[in-house]
């Protein structure tokens, strides 16, 4: 338990101390929210779909969470490079706890990031239909963050260096984001693809809680997210336990 806590705390300390990282990682969601939100807003309205910011904001919250989470998971590669990973691997604690502490830490950081983006989108004109569902939304954020941090961890255990990072960004993270219904409503074949994308369920849950509109229903969303999280945590901890330096 103490191991999990101290490694969780470490992630939080690293996050809170790196101001440039916090601000830097807010740039992208902000850009998407403002340029797409105001750019496509009139077209979206003309197409009879209502206010685009209302539609877009949950998607952008999802985007900031998936980016931050995957990156937090992949940070293990940095630890490997800077040597800190060895310090944890020769310690008399279970590798599962090490992995879990890191993953929970990364997920907490990503959740913070999601909350900040939520606040920014409220400033940009987003209005949740019910403020009472904010605590539940934060819990779902944590679940989505956990899922993708575990995925990042699993990937980091396989990759040996940062060379593969671009590959992951362009062939995994970007497609997950674009094909999740975060930017446009899901229809036709896009909907079929999105059904296989865990992020779709996260964003759907945000929309359910924040704007009271949903494709899959909250129950299915939570179920899929929980099951996939468990799978990724299992895979991640298995791969982590196999790391040899």
């Amino acid at each position, binding site marked *: 338990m103490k191991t999990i806590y101290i490694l969780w705390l470490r992630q939080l300390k690293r996050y809170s*101390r790196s101001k440039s990282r916090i601000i830097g990682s807010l740039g992208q969601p902000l850009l998407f929210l403002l340029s797409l939100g105001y750019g496509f807003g009139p077209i979206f309205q003309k197409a009879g779909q209502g206010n685009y910011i209302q539609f877009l904001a949950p998607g952008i919250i999802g985007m900031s969470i998936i980016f931050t989470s995957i990156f937090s998971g992949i940070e293990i590669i940095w630890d490997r490079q800077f040597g800190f990973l060895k310090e944890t691997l020769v310690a*008399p604690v279970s590798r599962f706890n090490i992995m879990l502490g890191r993953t929970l830490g990364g997920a907490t950081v990503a959740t913070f990031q999601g909350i900040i983006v939520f606040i920014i989108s409220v400033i940009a004109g987003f209005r949740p239909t019910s403020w009472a569902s904010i605590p539940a939304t934060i819990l779902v954020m944590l679940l989505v963050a956990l899922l993708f941090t575990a995925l990042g961890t699993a990937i980091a255990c396989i990759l040996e*260096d940062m060379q593969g990072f671009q590959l992951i960004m362009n062939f995994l993270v970007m497609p997950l984001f674009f094909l999740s219904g975060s930017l446009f409503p899901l229809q036709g074949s896009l909907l079929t693809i999105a059904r296989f994308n865990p992020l779709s369920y996260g964003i759907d849950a945000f929309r359910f809680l924040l704007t009271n509109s949903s494709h899959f229903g909250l129950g299915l969303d939570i179920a899929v997210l929980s099951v996939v999280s468990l799978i990724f945590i299992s895979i991640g901890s298995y791969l982590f336990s196999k790391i040899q330096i």
Partner: protein
Amino acid sequence: MNIIEVKNLSKKFKGLTAVDNISFNVEKGEIFAFLGPNGAGKSTTIKMLTTLLHPTEGEMQLNGHNPVENPDEVRRSFGIVFQDPSLDDELTAYENIELHGVLYDVPRAIGRKRAEELLKLVELWDRKDDFVKTFSGGMKRRLEIARGLLHHPKILFLDEPTLGLDPQTRNHMWNYIKELNQKEGITVFFTTHYMEEADRIAGRIAIIDHGKIVASGTTQELKEKTGKASLEDAFLELTGKVIREEEAGSIDVMRMNRRMWAGKK
């Protein structure tokens, strides 16, 4: 009594035998030097002893425990200073020590007392709240030594601990380690490329080359065996004068990239 026993230990990577059927013992309370050219198998052996790598074949015992079957007992028995720093740069010196204390289950009050003692000993107490990223190479080493001793290990592994340190820091560090060895009876297992260090400090030496132990004994015995006046000459006699090439792993490549990018900033 032997605190480290290694019997017919081998490690094979794809198409390469890094460690080839080596056997040696280290007595409790001894300072043992493990010497060899680059790529001879020193670090691989240390990694196997410290549970980071699984051996392909052979038996090991550390403090009476087998690193493969009983890794946690083994991990509790040793402290290690790796060849490259293994600190978290974004944390302070004290936070690094504190984290180590939690990982090794050192009770809080005892951990605090020891942390103060150790940080004072390595002369970093007044810098304890500074971020490690502001430390020089020598300071990081000292901090790592302090950290490696926090849980009172029976064995201290030092993998090229003095690489890149100035003579003052080296001298200081070795004095401290010798003192620890005498006062606390900590067994020290170290590797180095500086032969005069091994000559001066080690009780016994083993020389490994191409994965095999080619000689072992006291520095006097090695000199007599080869008929050379210095350990350096004896070492060259035993391992030849050909310069060794070490294949760069992906981590080395990454490190190089980091230096490149850091240089550009």
